[in-house]
Structure formats: structure tokens, C-alpha cells
């Protein structure tokens, strides 16, 4: 009897020791997994290109003080090169942020806005009309990286990635990041290790405006009198409607803008369709291609290529945009508000560089500030 009791006690002690051993192992395993995840996550950040053409604008967006962005601009490279946030700030007191990426389709704009509206409640969203002209249902590898890698919230990034890739199995590599970018170890610089990114020297107060610093003149035809139209790609239409519905639901005014560019002669066919869809939702729009004379844009001097305004063009265009926005929307003048110091700082940094941009003409378009 006594022997049996001893055996039972020994068994209980062994079980207790085993439970303790497994619990200790469990704790160590969890710690190791967390450290590994953090390490790989940081490695993913290091190897990710600190590109201003999408990734950095999203990363830097998270650094804006909550509820400070009054005008959130979403769209393609035409917008980040054309909407000069510094002019909007200095000349109109509008606190705008360009949350744009290269060739951003509407499905990326939708998911980006979904993420962006978590921390900011802008008084206006400006949406680039250009994606209405895109024929593709999916994006190329480089574009998927630029468009999604800056998004911090994992479920949103997964949704944005799944919307971008043709085969859902390809999404895993993008979601994990490292499989797509690890070969960048060949080109790493010290800047890649710094958190947050320095936005290619623009500083952490940058508001997403990317200068296109050259002159490439083009002549163009005025086809604005033609009312013909072409159907928009079904996926683009699906997502632009989603954007309209989302902003309506959140009660945030949205305006579509057609960015002026010499390469407009086919775009207007799609824009006409997009305006009809916008009309269904009561969304306003301005096609600035029809206002190029009022803006004063010289297509031989104010463009960097077929699609993008250069610095000079951006100054002229944004002056007109600011005027239109002020007239149409109730946008407060934030100048002098200490909460908006970063806009002031960004504009000051940019002004220092302004005379050095080869495409600018400070005398013809004096900043006056």
C-alpha cells in the first residue's frame, strides 16, 4: 500500500516536472517567435525601397498629427507631381497631404483611403481621375510593392495586395515583404536602416509633393468639345464606386480632378464616363485639361514629360486649384496654428530648394513668401 502511494507520488511529481518543463518551453518558444517576427519585420523595412513614389508618402502619413490633414489627395504620379502642397499651404493656408503612388489604380486608392481615414478626418478628399483610363485588371510586381508596402495595417495591406495580384497565391510573398525585397541587400545604404525614412533628404515633415525637375515640352490638341466616351475597366469602376460610397458613408466630401497633361487626347473619352458615374453620386469634378488657358500653363515649358507637370507647372496649377478649393469648400486657413508647424517647416525646406529646380522660373512665378 505504502509502495503504491510512493509510486503515485513519484508519478505526480514527474507529471508536475513535465508540465513545468513544457510551460517553460512554451514561454521560450513564444519569446523566440516574437523576437524572430520583430527581426524579420525590421529586415523587411530595411530592404524595402524608401521610394518617394508611394512607400514613403504612406510611411510619413502615419507621422502626421491626428486630425490635422484638411485636404487628402489620392491618386497617381500626376497628382503627386502636380499638387504642390507647399503652395496650398503658403498661399491659401490649406493643410494638404498627397497620399499618392505611381499609377495608383482605384482599388489601391480605396484601400489606402480606408487606412488613411483611421487617423485623419479630412474636410475634403481629392481623387485623381486618371485610373479611369487604365485597362489592366492587375498590377506589375514593382507597382504592387510601391502601392502596398507602406500600408501598416496588415488586414488592409492583405486586402490591397489581393486586389492587386492576378493569382492570390502570389500575394503571400508581398504580404511577407521579404520574399519580394530581400535581394536589395546588394544596394543597401545607411539610410535604409533609419526609422522613419528621411524621404530622400526631404525631411520627416514632407507632405508627399514630388518635384518633377526637368522641362520636356509637348504640343497638344484641344479635343474637349467632343462628348464621346469609352467604358471604364470594370474593376476600376467597381472600386471608384466603392470610394464614392465609403466617403459618403463617412460624410467626407470628395472631388474628382482631371490633371492637366499633354497626353490627354484619349483620356477624355474615359473621363466623360467617369463624370457620369460621379453624377450618379452627386460627386463634383473639375477637369483641369479644359482650364489650361485659365491656369496659364505653357505645355512647352511647364511639363517634365507627357504626363507630369514640372515645378513651374505645379506652381501655376496649384494656385488655380487652391483658388477653386477655397471657393467651393469651407477650408480653414491653418497658418499660424502651432499644430500645423510641420506644414510651415515643409514649405520652408522646399522654398530653400526652389530656385535650384531647373524647371522652375522664380522670376516668372515668384513665390512671394
Amino acid at each position, binding site marked *: 500500500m505504502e509502495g503504491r502511494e510512493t509510486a503515485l507520488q513519484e508519478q505526480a511529481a514527474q507529471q508536475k516536472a513535465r508540465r513545468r*518543463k*513544457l510551460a517553460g*518551453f512554451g514561454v*521560450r*518558444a513564444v519569446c*523566440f517567435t516574437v*523576437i*524572430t517576427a520583430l*527581426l*524579420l519585420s525590421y*529586415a523587411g523595412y530595411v*530592404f524595402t525601397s524608401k521610394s518617394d513614389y508611394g512607400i514613403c508618402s504612406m510611411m510619413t502619413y502615419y507621422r502626421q498629427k491626428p486630425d490635422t490633414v484638411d485636404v487628402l489627395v489620392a491618386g497617381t504620379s500626376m497628382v503627386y507631381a502636380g499638387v504642390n502642397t507647399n503652395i496650398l499651404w503658403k498661399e491659401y493656408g490649406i493643410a494638404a497631404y498627397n497620399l499618392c503612388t505611381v499609377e495608383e489604380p482605384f482599388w489601391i486608392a480605396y484601400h489606402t483611403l480606408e487606412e488613411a481615414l483611421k487617423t485623419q478626418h479630412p474636410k475634403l478628399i481629392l481623387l485623381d481621375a486618371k485610373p479611369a483610363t487604365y485597362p489592366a485588371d492587375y498590377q506589375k*510586381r514593382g507597382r504592387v510593392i510601391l502601392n502596398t508596402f507602406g500600408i501598416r495595417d496588415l488586414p488592409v495591406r492583405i486586402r490591397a495586395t489581393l486586389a492587386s495580384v492576378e493569382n492570390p*497565391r502570389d500575394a*503571400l*510573398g508581398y504580404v*511577407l515583404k*521579404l*520574399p*519580394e525585397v*530581400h*535581394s536589395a*541587400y*546588394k544596394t543597401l545604404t545607411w539610410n535604409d536602416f533609419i526609422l522613419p525614412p528621411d524621404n530622400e533628404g526631404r525631411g520627416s515633415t514632407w507632405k508627399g509633393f514630388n518635384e518633377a525637375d526637368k522641362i520636356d515640352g509637348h504640343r497638344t490638341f484641344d479635343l474637349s468639345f467632343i462628348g464621346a466616351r469609352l467604358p471604364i475597366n470594370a474593376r476600376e469602376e467597381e472600386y471608384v464606386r466603392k470610394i464614392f460610397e465609403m466617403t459618403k458613408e463617412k460624410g467626407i466630401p470628395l472631388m474628382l480632378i482631371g490633371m492637366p497633361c499633354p497626353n490627354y487626347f484619349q483620356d477624355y473619352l474615359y473621363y466623360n464616363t467617369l463624370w457620369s458615374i460621379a453624377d450618379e453620386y452627386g460627386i463634383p469634378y473639375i477637369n483641369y485639361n479644359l482650364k489650361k488657358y485659365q491656369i496659364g500653363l505653357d505645355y512647352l515649358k511647364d511639363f517634365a514629360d507627357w504626363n507630369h507637370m514640372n515645378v513651374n507647372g505645379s506652381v501655376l496649377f496649384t494656385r488655380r486649384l487652391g483658388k477653386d478649393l477655397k471657393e467651393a469648400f469651407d477650408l480653414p486657413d491653418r497658418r499660424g496654428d502651432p499644430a500645423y508647424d510641420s506644414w510651415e517647416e515643409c514649405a520652408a525646406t522646399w522654398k530653400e530648394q526652389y530656385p535650384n529646380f531647373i524647371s522652375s522660373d522664380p522670376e516668372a512665378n515668384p513665390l512671394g513668401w
Partner: protein
Amino acid sequence: MSILSIEFLLLAAGTLIVYYLLPLKIRWIALLCGSAAFICLSGWHSAAHLTAVALVMWGGGLLLQKHRSRLLLSGLLALDLGAMAFLKYYPVFSGADLLLPVGLSYFTFQSAGYLVDVYRGKTEPQRNPLKAWLFVGYFPQLSQGPISTWKELGGQLLTGHRLEPENIVSGFQLVLWGLFKKMIIADRLVATTAAVLQGGELPGWLILSGTILYAIRLYLDFSGGMDVVRGFSRMAGIELPENFRRPFFSKSVAEYWRRWHITLGAWFRSYLLYPLTTSHAGIALGKAASRIFGKKTGRTVPTALATLIVFLLIGIWHSANWNAVIFGAYFGAVMAVSTLLEQFWKFLQKRLKLPKGGWMTPVRLLRTWLLILIAQYFAFTPDPSTAFSLLGGTFRNWDFSGFAERMGAIMTGQEWIITGAGCMIVLIVDILCERKKDVCGTLARTHFWIRWPVLLLLILAIATFGIYGAGYDPAAFLYTQF
């Protein structure tokens, strides 16, 4: 599905979690489900063929237990091996495009071995068809083996293993080590093989170094994959047989084949070589040869002949082309000659007072390396004319001018440094293992503040320098094609 894919790693991790959550007695069901998922994701044709083989094995085993007939065994083996031969070789001769099931050779050999073992009375046949299926379909070993016997694997698969932290740590380390060898070094060396195969006038040193690097690549590719397979199995408490034991430290070709693809060699020895040498014909041949060459040498003749046949078959198993035939015949001839001349070598060694170790060790190593290298020319080239042309080219044009340009054209300096450093690490670990140091075990037992940084560094190195992701085909394991 490649064992390097993220899908495989997720499947393996999921299977492990479910395995340890289930009660001990039914843990094999987790392995069964994981294997079923793997084979189905690899294609329905693979799943169908594997299931057919498993059914033949299961039913055949039960039949053989009841009727221990050589004819029945021959019929079952013909069905089993015939299907494999048809799928592997019919497309070569007919030009037809047949889909090869994943792991065809490995599960076919394993099931054939099981049938022979049941016939020999070495193994009790499995009555549960699902358990029999798991034996041939156990998913980690489907891609590239090892080829296990029922005694080695069956019991381990079906007996539930308790969660032992030591197994998890040690298995995880083995997985990482395998990934390091395969992804960082072997896959980088693809470029060196391509450089030799590009054609044109190549200097001899480039051909030779390309061939040496191919041999290293093949070893790291295959053994790396095997470490992943064994590591995962170890995490589930299953110890798979070792398939590579540092073959480049072999002092003879025979030893090399005892260290290289060990389970394949063991399979051929057990199910072909021994039956051939101990058959009536083999014994008769031995007696006849003894009368001509004397007792000692004569006895080796059947073994030499059987070795030649076995290696020819191993060659043809690798691929149905002339290079594979030459590869097999070459190794068979080397092994047969060394068997036949065994007595003469012993006599010579005694007469010349050659030491067994000492200065003879590097000589033997070098001799073995040279013999192995000759075979490699037939392993990585598409046809005999290319192989012979490169073999001849090795002895010509040892001009080192333009060395830097040629090396730079193959890989960048950074890539060479990574490859070189990786090879050095593998060499050091292999030397330690060769000296009976348990590197993996020692690391697993070390205090965590030493072990963790080493493991984290290894993970980071694989994640950074591994060849994977965009533009890379992870299915390209050299041995998966067999």
C-alpha cells in the same frame, strides 16, 4: 509543392500543431491529413497514383502473408516497379507528355521494399489501409526521400510521440541548417554550372572548378533538402534514416556510396545486390570463377558483376539517357574493379608498407575525389559528347588571364563572398561532425543566450541571402525530378 515553399512550411507547422493537440493514440491521423493535403495540392494525378501504389502494397502485403508465393511477389513488384518505369521511360521513347507524380521513385521503392520484407517474413503486413497509405505517403519524404523500410518508419509514424522540447529545438535547427545549405549556397552555385555549360572556348580551370562546384552544389542541394525533411520529422518525434554522411570525406568510391544517398544504396543492396549474389546463378558463377582465379578472387566475381548491374540500374534510375548509363556503368566498373582487385591491393599495401592512415589519407581522399569528379562530367551535361568535350577541355588552355572578368560574369564579388563564406561554414561543421562532434546537439543543449543569437543569425542570413521569392523557382530541387 516544394519543401522550400511557404505553403509547405505552413502545412508542416499546421500539421505539427494538430499532431501535438491530438491524443497520443491518434496522432498519426494528423500526419495522414497533412500528407493527404500535400499530395492533393501537388496534383490529383500524384494523389491517384500514390493511392493506387499504397493499395497494391496494402493488399499485396496481406495476400503475401496468406500465400507466400514468389510468383505473387514478382507480379506485385512488376505492377509496382512497372508503373514507375512506364511513367519515367515511356515519355522518353515515345515523346508523349506524361505527368510524373511527385516522389514517384521514392514511394515506389518504399512500397516494393515493404512487399519484399513481408514476403521474407521480416515485416508483419499492415491491416489498416490508411496506415499503409501513410507509410508511402508521409509527406515530408515524398519530395526527395529518404527511402525507409517499414521497420525504420512504420512504427514511428503510427506511435504517437510526446511533445519533447529537445526534439523541437533540434529538429528546428536541422531545418534551418538545411535551408542554409540549399538556399544560400546550392542555389547560388546554379550560375557556375550554367557558366560551364554555356559552350564556347572555356579555359581548363573554369571547366574543372565548375565541375567541382557542381559536385558541391549537388551535395548541398540534396543534403539540405534532406535536413529539412529530417528536421521536420524530428520535431514530430520521428527519426528518419540519415541519407548523407559527409560523402566528400570518403577515402574510397565504395565508402562514398555508403555515405551518398545512403537509403537508395541500402535499398539496392538489400533488394537487388544480395539476392543477385546469393542466387543459384550467383553461387554457380562464384564457384566457376574460383576454379579459374583462385578461391579468394573468384568469390568476388559474383559481387563485382552484381555491383556493375546495380550501378547501371542506379544510373538509369537517375535518367533515361546515355549520360546516365555512362554514369552508372562508370561507377559500376570502378566498384567492380576495386572488388576484383581487393586482394591485390591488400598485397600491394603490405608489400609497400603503406600506412592505413597518415600521409595516405589525403592521397586516398584525392584519389576518391578525382574518381567522383570524372562521373560529375556526365551528371550535369546533357549528352556524352558535351561531357567528353568538357572532360578533354579540362586539360587544355590553363590560361588565367581574364580570370577576374570570367568570375565576375558568373556572379558578382558579393555573391562569391557569400558563397565562399557559406561553403566554409559547412566545411567547418562537416569537419566537426566527422570528428564525432555533435554540433546540432551541442547547440541545442547550449544556454539560450548563445543558442538564440546563433539561430536568429541563421534565420536572418537565410531570409536575406537565400535565393527565393520573385523570379525564383523553388521547385527546382535537383533530386525532386527523380
